[in-house]
């Protein structure tokens, strides 16, 4: 592939192609991408290796996947990992009980209305959502449902962005199980139907994984495959200000007065730096706080007032732990 043909993420939502995929995010994502992060994304797209993002909560790990999918017009399949999630859940689920139920229903009805209705041509593809009346228990394919990764593997005309959110929450073996799928030959088998699903070699999924490191490190073989980037909180006032600008610009909302933005950025960064936090607030908390300052009352909070304030307004948006809250109470 030459450089021109390659998918390249620029961090500019305007570059979105005219005809995006139907599963692509509809709303543009107000996301300011640093050069380092942009490069990590592009390298991940180029090598088709999973990109693992770590960092504090609320610094935009998850939103990045939306920004990438929006700009490139690619479908985004999000997979929220829970402690009970198995790697197979992301590929497909098979509903044997529903099939059993349908057999019973069919027998009760005495006839076989489904077979006449179900067009045999469409059986092979596009049967992810079959209306109940068209389900035929004779066809096991009607009872499989593809998960986020499964859907991405089935796309033939373009790659999909798969977001695997909070991978560290999952069971011990989960990352390793995932690896067997996210590597050559990029395929998996559906045991119940005997189908083999293979990703198109030109359009392998772009996988973005986030982790909070809640349960220790991920296994070494998994880390070996991944590209790793640690997302820092944007400590620079200019950077935070540009995030605010981008946020309001893309949302199409009226931004807060410039003075208020500057003052709140300064106040927030000072607080964040000088206080000893148990859980420091992230970018998303800051944006919420700014929104509250701007719009919660009839009039925006006055910037001069904010500068003079000793106790912070709307502390409940920034202090999320009892011990942080107690520190605040002691300080003021």
């Amino acid at each position, binding site marked *: 592939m030459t*450089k021109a043909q*390659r998918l390249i993420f620029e961090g500019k939502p305007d570059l979105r192609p005219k005809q995006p995929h139907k599963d692509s995010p509809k709303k543009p994502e107000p996301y300011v991408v640093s050069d*380092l992060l942009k*490069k*990590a994304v*592009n*390298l991940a797209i*180029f*090598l088709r*290796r999973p990109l*693992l993002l*770590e960092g504090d909560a609320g610094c935009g790990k998850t939103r990045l996947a939306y920004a990438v999918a929006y700009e490139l017009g690619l479908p985004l399949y999000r997979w929220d990992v829970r402690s009970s999630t198995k790697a197979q859940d992301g590929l497909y689920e098979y509903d*044997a*009980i529903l099939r*059993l139920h349908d*057999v*019973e229903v069919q027998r009760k009805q005495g006839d076989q209305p489904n077979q006449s209705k179900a067009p045999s041509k469409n059986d092979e593809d596009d049967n992810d959502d079959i209306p109940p009346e068209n389900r035929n228990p004779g066809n096991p394919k009607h009872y499989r449902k593809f998960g986020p990764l499964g859907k991405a593997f089935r796309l033939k005309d373009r790659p999909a962005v798969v977001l695997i959110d909070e991978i560290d929450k999952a069971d*011990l073996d989960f990352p390793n199980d995932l690896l067997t799928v996210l590597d050559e030959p990029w395929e998996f088998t559906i045991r119940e139907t005997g189908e083999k699903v293979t990703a198109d070699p030109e359009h392998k999924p772009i996988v973005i994984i986030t982790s909070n490191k809640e349960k*220790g*490190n*991920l*296994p*070494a*073989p998994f*880390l*070996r*495959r*991944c*590209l*790793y*980037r*640690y997302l820092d909180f944007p400590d620079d006032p200019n950077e935070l200000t540009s995030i605010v600008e981008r946020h309001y610009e893309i949302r199409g909302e009226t931004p807060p007065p410039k003075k208020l933005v500057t003052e709140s950025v300064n106040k927030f960064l000072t607080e964040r730096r000088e206080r000893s936090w148990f859980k420091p607030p992230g970018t998303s908390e800051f944006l919420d706080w700014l929104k509250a300052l701007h719009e919660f009352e009839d009039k925006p909070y006055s910037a001069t007032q904010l500068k003079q304030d000793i106790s912070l307004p709307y502390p409940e948006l920034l202090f999320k732990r009892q011990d942080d809250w107690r520190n605040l109470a002691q300080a003021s």
Partner: protein
Amino acid sequence: MSSFDPQELNLQELVLRMFVRLRRSRFKLGVGEYMAALKAVEAGFGDDLDDLEDTLKLLWCGSLGEQSQFEPIWKSILAQVRAHKPRKPPFPGTLKVQPLPSPQELLDDRWEPEEMLPPLEKRVEQRPEPRDSLRMQAPNLLKPKMSSPPVQAFNLIIEEPWTLQAYYPISRRSLMYAWQNLRRPIADGPLNVLDINATIQQVSRQGLYISPVYARRERNDARLLLLVDQNGSMTPFHQFTRNLVETAREESSLDPENVGTFYFQNVPTSNVYMDTYLTEVVPLTAALSSCDAATSILIVSDAGAARGKRTRGRIRATARFLYQLKRYTSLIAWLNPMPKFRWVGSSAEIIANSVSMFQTDNEGLSNAIDVVRGQPLKHSYSSSL
């Protein structure tokens, strides 16, 4: 690549050297990662040195800790390549010429990056533990050093004066994995697991659907007794033993009620302790009262190998204790945090002949767990010499 002065630097060589060097520093990298890096460089993801450094970091570092380990190595390799004086053969294959580095070289190697760094910073490079083969091939080389603790046994990396990396003989994650193997599943739980296959089979046999088939929930009936040596020569391993106990209790498949932990100092006498500070005394017989032939016992102690002394009293007391223990169960294993070659000449060497003793690494722990779950290997300390 145009921004490089080709006479000064060869990109491919830089990547290769970096790869070989990082692998020696125990970065978990395979040929796949090396090829990926080359592919990335070819595609223009390393157009200048900073860019290349960042690309390699992205690809090869899996944590912030590894990233900070990467930087000094990068600097030193860069300086080497610039200076045109290859200190190390670039290919692992060429190592054959000189299979064993002399101790002097080992020493040189350890302090090598010092000259590249500001004078304050000192750094001990990570070295693989001396392997058995090393000892086999050059027994005379290593034996005189036995008494002094070799630095390379502790994978200590001092990057900068203010960052110390923790030393874990076995990572917490590996501990969790290892405990998964200690299982004795018994299906005596509530009858509430839907057996889909059996249900479908029943329906097809009976010709009509009556009710689903349930199976009993399985639980893990394995019982574990941990006896942990505390204080004294075990002090450096407190963090590790705490992890071991915590993972066994909370993050294994074991029922927390089936995990008992008692502590002792040096040798368990007629009393052991309930807590790590050795204050709550329990008679040993009481501690062992819940033990039966199916209880697994894992002892964690250096058995005198840390100080390297051979004490007759200690050996006798331990033998007496083991004899007492064996009346309850034969599923006993001993985990020694000191590497095997340090047992030689100490009390541990004698004790290892009367109990299955393993050094503390992933293999040792999984062997120990094999023993305590009743699948002993044909293994004894004396046969492994």
